[in-house]
């Protein structure tokens, strides 16, 4: 196949989603909602779009499955220009989860989950098996399968929303503030479950939020947007915290940048010293923030990291403070 050097070849692409100079101007809107945005969402990774209201993050998300059509530019999903596919065909291959969940109130939990498989014409046996599988995947009690959404709690409804989005096993999942409407405890559990789910499924997820903590906790990559769909910085969360690219980024991330950074680093990620002897013990799963917390509580300056009783090394307070910078 003929290729000019430097040209973009969709079939060689690594990113699952690529936005090329995408602009969206709403009729009667105040300037462009998204302006000349070029962005890649790597395959199998969770990309966060975060920013203040009016930054175009939701508009950007909704252009990917053509709920909003861009004014100009191209969007490529899995090597195909989305404009070249029938919108409804495209959408059946892209999972979609929103804050208000939008479950179909007249359909049971099972029938809600079965939505896209039915649209795709799967047979009943395959659909039933898939419903069971998904109920388990999102930790829903199988006894709820014949209930109606109105009978469920907010957290349960959003689990059904996630199961419905995953039903036809789409490679791409779009999530628009999915955990924004549930209480903090449920939100944290749903976030943890999404991380666990993603470590098994490796979907390409685009996740919109205005919550920096959520962005840092969930994102493989965080795209911080400013008003008008301008990308201020796109980087893994640790890098965003360590090297904010602008004052806007610094300001948006807010205070406790150092502590937030510590929460992203595991004790085994840093250089440990070899001098066993501290009374305080840490496990390899602990983060530097966990370690700091334990050291402060125990009034000690170092702690030994043990993996199943085997000594790995010693973490010092100095090492922690050098990571904060």
């Amino acid at each position, binding site marked *: 196949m003929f290729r000019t050097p430097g040209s973009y070849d969709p079939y060689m692409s690594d990113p699952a989603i690529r936005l090329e100079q995408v602009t969206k101007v709403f009729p009667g809107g105040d300037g462009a909602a998204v302006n000349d945005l070029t962005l890649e969402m790597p395959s199998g990774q969770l990309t966060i779009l975060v920013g203040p209201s009016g930054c175009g993050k939701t508009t950007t998300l909704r252009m990917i499955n053509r709920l909003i059509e861009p004014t100009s530019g191209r969007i490529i999903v899995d090597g195909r220009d989305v404009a070249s596919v029938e919108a409804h065909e495209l959408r059946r291959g892209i999972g*979609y989860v929103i804050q208000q969940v939008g479950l*179909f109130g*007249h359909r049971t939990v099972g029938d809600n989950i079965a939505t896209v498989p039915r*649209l795709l014409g799967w047979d009943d046996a395959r659909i039933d098996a898939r419903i069971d599988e998904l109920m388990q995947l999102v930790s829903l009690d199988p006894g709820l399968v014949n209930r*109606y959404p109105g009978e469920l709690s907010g957290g349960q409804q959003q689990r059904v929303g996630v199961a419905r989005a995953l039903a036809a096993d789409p490679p791409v999942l779009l999530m628009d503030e999915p955990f924004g409407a549930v209480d903090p405890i449920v939100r944290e559990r749903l976030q943890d479950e999404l991380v666990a789910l993603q470590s098994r499924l490796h979907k390409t997820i685009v996740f919109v939020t205005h919550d920096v903590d959520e962005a840092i906790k969930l994102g493989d990559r965080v795209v911080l947007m400013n008003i008008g769909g301008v990308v201020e910085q796109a980087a893994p969360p640790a890098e965003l915290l360590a090297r904010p690219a602008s004052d806007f980024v610094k300001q948006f991330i807010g205070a406790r940048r150092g502590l937030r950074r510590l929460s992203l680093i595991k004790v085994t990620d840093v250089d440990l010293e070899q001098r066993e002897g501290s009374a305080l013990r840490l496990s390899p799963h602990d983060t530097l923030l966990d370690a700091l917390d334990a050291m402060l509580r125990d009034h000690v300056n170092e702690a030994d990291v043990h993996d199943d009783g085997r000594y790995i090394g010693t973490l010092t307070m100095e090492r922690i403070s050098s990571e904060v910078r």
Partner: protein
Amino acid sequence: MKEPFIRWNWISGHLGEIGARTVQHLELTGIAVGVGFVIAMSLSILALRRRWTYSPITWFTGILYTIPSIALFALLVPITGLTILTAEIGLVSYTLLILIRNIVAGIDGVPAATRDAAVAMGYRPWRMFFEIELPLATPVIIAGLRIATVTTVGLVTLTALIGQGGYGYFINDGLRRFFNTPLFVGAALSVALAVALDVALVLVERALTPWRR
């Protein structure tokens, strides 16, 4: 002997005719609400798809609704005669405004997030209308059908003036002969039929909306 208020033996002597008039009353009502519903649904879909048509549609059906029924029948008789068609043109006209308002309000009442999710799942407009929007609007639509049905049962009695009428035939007969019994029987049966059909529609709604229990 003084004339009794109700002559019970008149009732027992006219059971066959009461049965026949019941069937006629049900037919006139059923056709009116059925045809009215089909027309109202078509106009509602038009109004929902092309929003600017909603205002003229409600304006036109609103005018139909305000025409006095006796005047409407009088206007139609020279054209369509003393027929069931004349009766139904009038009866159907009166159902439209109520039905269209409720159908449109019911569909508009579907939460935006539900519609958004349906579109994002890959629903196309017609399938979404029948599988998502219409079922969710059912309670409001049936509320409209109940009002339209009860109103129509009452209006059917007036079609006795053009030779139709169901129970209206008894009312008309009683009025002409200053004879209370058929007048009251006709009125009482008309009320009873309205109540019975209303209850039936409540049961239909319950059967169609299991998620609301």
